[in-house]
């Protein structure tokens, strides 16, 4: 019973503190609003399940993000419509450098969060985890803890992300996702 109480209270705490972040994470993985709601429900359900095993060897935040990314990655991996044509950060950066010129932007792309979501949804799972964690303001060591990548690799990826986003924002929304 004590375990259940602790699991429930941990979930309450996690949902209150990271609820908005989980919503943003779901947006980064699923464009369709209905499918996104299902994904978000699944994230919450798996998070609640998982908290029975939370052993405090990492922070609650790291645990929440690990579980959420895990569920969302499963969502991407299972759905071939999402999985098709995903690219890496390196490929995005290369394409941006090669094209140099801007693409025509549509109404949605002028909305910065949607544009960022558009970029994220083109990325392969690992790069998604890193960019979402970076955008949530996590330091490299936390991202490394969540993804299991070495801090050096994370730093390299974050550097690429910063370059891409800097170029996007400097050009005032002209680069398409």
């Amino acid at each position, binding site marked *: 019973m004590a375990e259940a109480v602790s699991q429930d209270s941990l979930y309450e705490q996690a949902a209150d503190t990271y609820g908005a972040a989980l919503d943003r994470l779901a947006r980064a993985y699923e464009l369709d609003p209905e499918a996104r709601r299902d994904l978000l429900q699944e994230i919450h359900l798996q998070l609640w399940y998982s908290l029975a095993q939370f052993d405090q060897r990492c922070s609650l935040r790291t*645990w929440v993000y690990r579980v959420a990314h895990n569920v969302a990655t*499963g969502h991407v991996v299972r759905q071939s419509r999402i999985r098709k044509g995903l690219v890496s950060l390196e490929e995005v950066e290369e394409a941006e450098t090669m094209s140099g010129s801007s693409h025509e932007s549509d109404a949605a792309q002028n909305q910065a969060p949607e544009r960022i979501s558009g970029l994220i949804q083109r990325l392969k799972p690992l790069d998604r985890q890193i960019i979402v964690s970076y955008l949530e303001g996590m330091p490299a060591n936390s991202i490394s803890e969540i993804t*299991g*990548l070495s801090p050096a690799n994370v730093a390299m990826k974050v550097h690429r992300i910063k370059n891409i986003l800097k170029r996007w924002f400097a050009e005032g929304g002209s680069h398409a996702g």
Partner: protein
Amino acid sequence: MPDKSTMNDPQNVWQNQPTEAFKMSVDQLRVKAQRRQKGARSQVLRDAIMGPIISAFFAWNLIKVNHVWWGLGHPLSLWSTRVGLALLSLWGVSLPFVLYKWVWPARLAPDAPLNTTLQWYRSQLEKGRDFERRVWLILIPAFVGLALVIVPALISSIGNPREFLQNSLPLFALLAIWLPIFLYLRKRRHGRRQKEIDQLRAFERDYQV
């Protein structure tokens, strides 16, 4: 009007986007979890019961074979039928174990890192692919058992071509329809699975930066 410098900070833009206040109550989570557990339990039950039912059906016929089955005058025919039914009955008993080994998914830690998650999904797909590859091996005892039951009856009617046709035609017609469909669907599923496995391998390769 938001500050322009804030608007140009991707982290700020991302974190300040409007979000839905989504939260599930613990009771809602429990109901959902119970519903899911119930579904999983009935699936296990279905898998576990199917084998014994098949086994019991053939065992029952094995007991009755002496006086019910068609004109089995020759002792060899009788023994062939008995062995066939016994084989089918044993096959039925083994079915839940086979399904458990090949179909039941392994557990994945909830906080597993990405490469473990990808490996897990890939291993599940590979398991499915290998199951389809080996499905013939799993079906062999059933085919042998059926052959041992059916062939003596067919042989006994060879002297009477009309009876022979009557006995064999439905079976061979069914086989002729089933086999190409089964092979076609199997090939298609295999192709799709292999494509998914290759995509996951590519994701895993990206991970080895």
